[in-house]
């Protein structure tokens, strides 16, 4: 495979962070969406990828990609279909091996700590379980017991009236809101979101933007792949370019 096989360099529309951390974020107490309470501690992790290359089968999608995110920073990945946005997110989530390069944390999250949320095209929602049961399962799986966080997640994504309904009767947009509620119900420093606002109406998209803002205020990081205007200004943008 050479250049003819689709291997190409990336165009970055913004220069990436060189590791400088913004002041005033991280471990400082920040205003929080949890029913007006303040978070005691924010996140103070940074997440990096160096020389990352991704391939699907025989086809190289991108290479030589460096990412350096600090607390409160958000990277939005854009680009036409088939340029490797999903592949990039799956590599960052550890679901796919990188063809080249490395991914890492500074400092490394503890064992058993929820380091990241990956939300792909699918919602990971069980249709036979109710909204409340889905949220409870996600928390148990992560070893988190936090009723206040569940309540906050339900409030933000307007799920209160739906909690006792089986998820299969929800509309596509409501199921997406339930999937997004996982991000708030289980705090994690890094969100990796693939087209998070698919199927959302304007009000829900605004609620999502507020959730991202609160996550950033708490020192959280996010990498989002999207075609849509998300209603907030990311720290960095990455254009995956065109398929050759």
């Amino acid at each position: 495979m050479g250049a003819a096989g689709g291997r190409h360099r990336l165009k970055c529309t913004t220069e990436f962070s060189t590791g400088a951390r913004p002041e005033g974020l991280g471990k400082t107490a920040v205003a929080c969406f949890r029913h007006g309470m303040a978070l005691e501690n924010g996140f103070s992790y940074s997440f990096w990828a160096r020389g990352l290359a991704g391939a699907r089968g025989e086809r190289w999608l991108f290479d030589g990609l460096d990412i350096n995110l600090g607390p409160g920073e958000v990277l939005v990945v854009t680009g036409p279909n088939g340029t490797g946005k999903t592949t990039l997110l799956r590599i960052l989530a550890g679901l796919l091996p990188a063809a080249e390069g490395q991914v890492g944390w500074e400092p490394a999250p503890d064992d058993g700590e929820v380091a990241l949320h990956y939300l792909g095209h699918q919602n990971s929602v069980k249709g036979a379980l109710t909204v409340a049961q889905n949220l409870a399962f996600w928390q148990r799986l992560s070893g988190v017991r936090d009723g206040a966080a569940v309540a906050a997640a339900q409030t933000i994504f307007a799920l209160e009236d739906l909690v006792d309904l089986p998820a299969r009767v929800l509309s596509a947009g409501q199921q997406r809101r339930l999937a997004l509620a996982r991000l708030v119900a289980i705090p994690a420093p890094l969100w990796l979101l693939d087209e998070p606002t698919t199927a959302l109406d304007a009000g829900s998209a605004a609620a999502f933007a507020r959730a991202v803002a609160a996550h950033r205020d708490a020192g959280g990081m996010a990498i989002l792949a999207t075609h849509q205007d998300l209603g907030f200004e990311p720290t960095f943008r990455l254009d995956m370019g065109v398929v050759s």
Partner: protein
Amino acid sequence: MNGFWAILGRDVTLARVESGGALLAVQFFALGILLFPLGLGPEPGMLARLGGGLLTIMALLATLLALDRLFQQDYEDGTLDLLLTSPAPLWSMVLGKGVAHWLVTGAPMLVAAPLLGILLQMSWPAIGGLVAALALGTPTLSLVGAVGASLTIGARRGGVLLALLVLPLYIPVLIFMSGTVTAAETGLAFGGHVSILGAVLLLSLVLTPWASAVALRQVGE
């Protein structure tokens, strides 16, 4: 053990709530056994003689019934990504899946087997041996089946592939299960067979979650 209990609880709930319910496998098991007297004729001595073998083979087939959905559903709705990125160790979640599968297939069969044994006019010692064999054999079938299920995720016609993959692995368990019943029936000591079934179960408890976890990690690639 968060992963283990979370998955165990969820899978048992799902089996209970979803259409078909938790008793699908045991219904198949019982119905299959009821076909044999109709097909073979009601000659009493023959059914009693064949009973142990029929019940163990049907237990094996009923175990296969729900296996292909074990990971496939989680793969299709994206839950597998969630499991793979969760901080809980993957083997603990896989073990939870195997145990949940046994609770909704193997355990009900264990309850139904003595009744079906009586129906086939098996002797009491043979029924005792059968219960011991199923108690130790069916968990192994669920655990080994989970490895097959994780290897066939995403395969078209995965159910058939799964059966071809898993049935040969079930042969040793089948031999020692029916060996237990035969020995019990003829009044011989069956402790040796039971010990081997127990040893295979312990080995499966240790090795299969690890093997399944390795297979699941390859799914996205």
